[in-house]
């Protein structure tokens, strides 16, 4: 049953329409904190119905509260626990909580009931990649692309997995495929341009890396990594003076992102600005100290 249809059916009893409507509105507007708040109110007034609990869990997940989301999923009735959507949300929650083995098992259960669901091998691939199981990650992403040849995120991540496996030629082919898919049809998707730029910096192709990073920054000007990569490519191109502007922009977007501070110090050093370099290193150390060692 479609998730929103199920919710609408719940509301037909007129027992809690206001809470649900407010929650749905907040969810649609991506105000997930508010959505979670109102769904929780709806659960308490309407009762712990499965679709409502699932909606609450999804809102909590997107609000960055995975532990609360898991608690909501645990309240699902027994038959709702094996619902495909519930399994997929549970797996995401488990992944974010660092319970990779549980997330993997949940996704495998989901795959057994929906072998053609492209989201499942994609999420499995992300877990494997995070764990450094790159062979398995590549296999999962490849499965996702086999299920849907236009699954651009899967192609993007397949590129990352191939890079991790040392096959940079394949990695570039996969990134190119993803770029071809998103170039016109997904103007908001920037990640593949950044990933590709990152690879090309490692390969010493700094001019192309810079172009890709600029494209990523144009697509998503709110993402500091895009500006960092552009700045990094410029440093390698010997244009430290220009790189400073890109790196400072990355820091403006997120002052707690350590890498741009570190690179900025190097750029300043090359520009003969030791005092600025020392200041950047101090900022780097402060940012690094508060950054989690593992990012998910």
């Amino acid at each position, binding site marked *: 049953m479609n998730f929103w249809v199920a919710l609408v059916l719940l509301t037909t009893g007129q027992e809690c329409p206001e809470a649900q409507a407010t929650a749905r509105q907040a969810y649609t507007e991506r105000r997930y904190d508010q959505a979670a708040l109102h769904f929780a109110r709806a659960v308490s007034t309407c009762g712990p119905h499965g679709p409502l609990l699932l909606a609450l869990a999804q809102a909590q997940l997107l609000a960055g509260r995975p532990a609360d989301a898991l608690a909501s999923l645990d309240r699902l009735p027994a038959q709702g626990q094996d619902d495909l959507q519930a399994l997929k949300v549970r797996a995401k929650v488990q992944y974010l909580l660092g319970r990779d083995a549980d997330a993997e098992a949940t996704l495998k259960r989901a795959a057994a009931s929906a072998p053609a669901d492209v989201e499942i091998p994609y999420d499995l691939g992300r877990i494997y990649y995070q764990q450094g*199981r790159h062979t398995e990650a590549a296999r999962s992403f490849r499965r996702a692309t086999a299920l849907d040849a236009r699954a651009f995120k899967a192609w993007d991540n397949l590129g990352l997995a191939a890079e991790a496996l*040392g096959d940079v030629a394949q990695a570039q082919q996969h990134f190119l495929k993803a*770029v071809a898919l998103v170039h016109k049809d997904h103007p908001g998707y920037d990640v593949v341009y950044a990933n590709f730029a990152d690879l090309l910096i490692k390969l010493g192709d700094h001019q192309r890396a810079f*172009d890709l990073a600029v494209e990523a920054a144009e697509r998503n000007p709110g993402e500091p990594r895009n500006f960092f990569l552009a700045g990094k490519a410029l440093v390698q191109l010997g244009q430290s003076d220009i790189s400073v502007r890109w790196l400072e922009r990355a820091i403006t977007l997120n002052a707690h992102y350590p890498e741009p501070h570190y690179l900025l110090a190097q750029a300043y050093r090359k520009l003969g600005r030791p005092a600025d370099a020392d200041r950047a290193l101090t900022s780097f150390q402060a940012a690094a100290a508060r950054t989690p060692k593992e990012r998910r």
Partner: protein
Amino acid sequence: MRWVVVAGATGLAVSMAVPQGATSWTFTDVTELSGVTFRHAASRTRVKFLPEAMGGGVAIFDANGDGRLDLFFTNGAAASEDTTSARPPDKRDSRFWNRLYLNLGGWKFQDVTERAGLAGTRYDFGAAVADYDNDGDVDLHVTGFGGNTLYRNDGNGTFTDVTTAAGAAVAGWSSSAAFVDYDHDGRLDLYVGRYLAWTWESNLVCPASDGTGRAYCHPKHFAPVASVLLRNNGDGTFRDASTASGIAAYPGKALGVAIHDYDRDGWIDLFVANDSMQQYLFRNTGRGGFVEVGLEAGIAYDDNGLSFAGMGTDVEDYDNDGWPDVIVTTLSLERYALFRALGQGRFEYASHTSGVGRATFQHAGWGTKFADLDNDGRRDLFVAQSHVLDTVSRERQGFDYLQPPLLLRGEGTSFVDVSASLGPAFARPAAGRGAAFADLDDDGDVDVIIGNLDAGPTILRNDVGNAHHWLTVSLRGTRSNRDGIGAIVRVVDEDGRTRSGICSTASSYQSGSDRRVHFGLAGARMLRRVEVRWPGGALQVLTDIAADRILEIVEPTAGVLR
């Protein structure tokens, strides 16, 4: 003009996979015929005590003064799940002894451990060698868990434990050590790297990620500790100079240490490979102390400012630009960290641009050295390899615990993986840890000894042949320390090509190598100049030196250019 990626674009150059080079030379594994029957015993337990994973070291030095280089291996000790500080591992069983093998010539070795008095008393890790008392024979320092041991060479084939009498005792977990005359008083001091704050009682339960049992814990669970610098008093004793020198101010997780004058100011500096934290570069101030400058030198982190698991290290000039560069071996998925010197004490992370990163992403490395193994005039990079977790193959598909050694051939500023063409020894997976380097048969090429965890060592004879020329420089200090440790040797061939190297026994991982400075000279039969910059700053110059020999240089007692 912007470069735009278009679907199906054909104009895009796609880089190839990791380049594999070929060579016409091989290494021969001569372990079986050598008479070296030593097997490292880690004494692994179900509870996964951290020391079990760290393996042992190798030292190559002339223990009995017969002119041949001998072999020393460190070993573990019998531990069990009941092991505690009060009931420490037991080394009495001869399976756990450290071992000394005398070189009989012809790649034959004889175990003389018992007579030499080198069996040891604790769970040991590393070995460092040098003539610290300037009496003409090479002494031995052994690191371990719960203490260290300084053995004075008695000059008659036996050694005496002088740790306490010399004031050289270091508590805790010591790993790699380095003899270095940091204050230029002509006496070798001793840096003892310490790993972390761990005890048998504080070992944690760290589940394997596949849920099948326990794995060795990540070092992040344990606090760093400061290393120790022992200053040589010149009367056979040392005093702890850790605080006075500034070393004590920097707690770390030291696993590897190498020495060099990275900024060419005439004072020998220390580089310390730390596990999963920033790397340390201790700049010698020339006033009896050190300041840690890794961050400002651009060597503390990778190119993104991220830390990595520093294991083994070496500092040497691989690109022949006169400035010493740095390699740090790391764990899988980190890429070995190559830092190319930019001059004036600055480094850039060069793993990506040199090819080292692409060749090592899946590898985990320990003992390492820049050495010109094919004598082509460019230093290559050797690494003893293995993942740290013996459970990794179960936990992560595509990852191997046992890994064959790696040789990246130097191509000037980049490296190419030539391991596959070097013979079966480079295809045989092992749990490589320590590695030491020396021309064991004095035939002009550098041979390699690998210490493998819970297994016998691998003795690799370099069979590169004599297609290229070479020079090995053996120094004897008179005003400087007798071993000449810290001296920088620079050779200039007839075409003006310059190469340099440091006289040192310290680098790699928990190991001590031959102090002689080896140069591959490619086609050069003659050297226009051989210069020695002795630790005190004195410059000695020799001219018109023929290649293909071991050149002994004695420091003049007077009349030296400065």
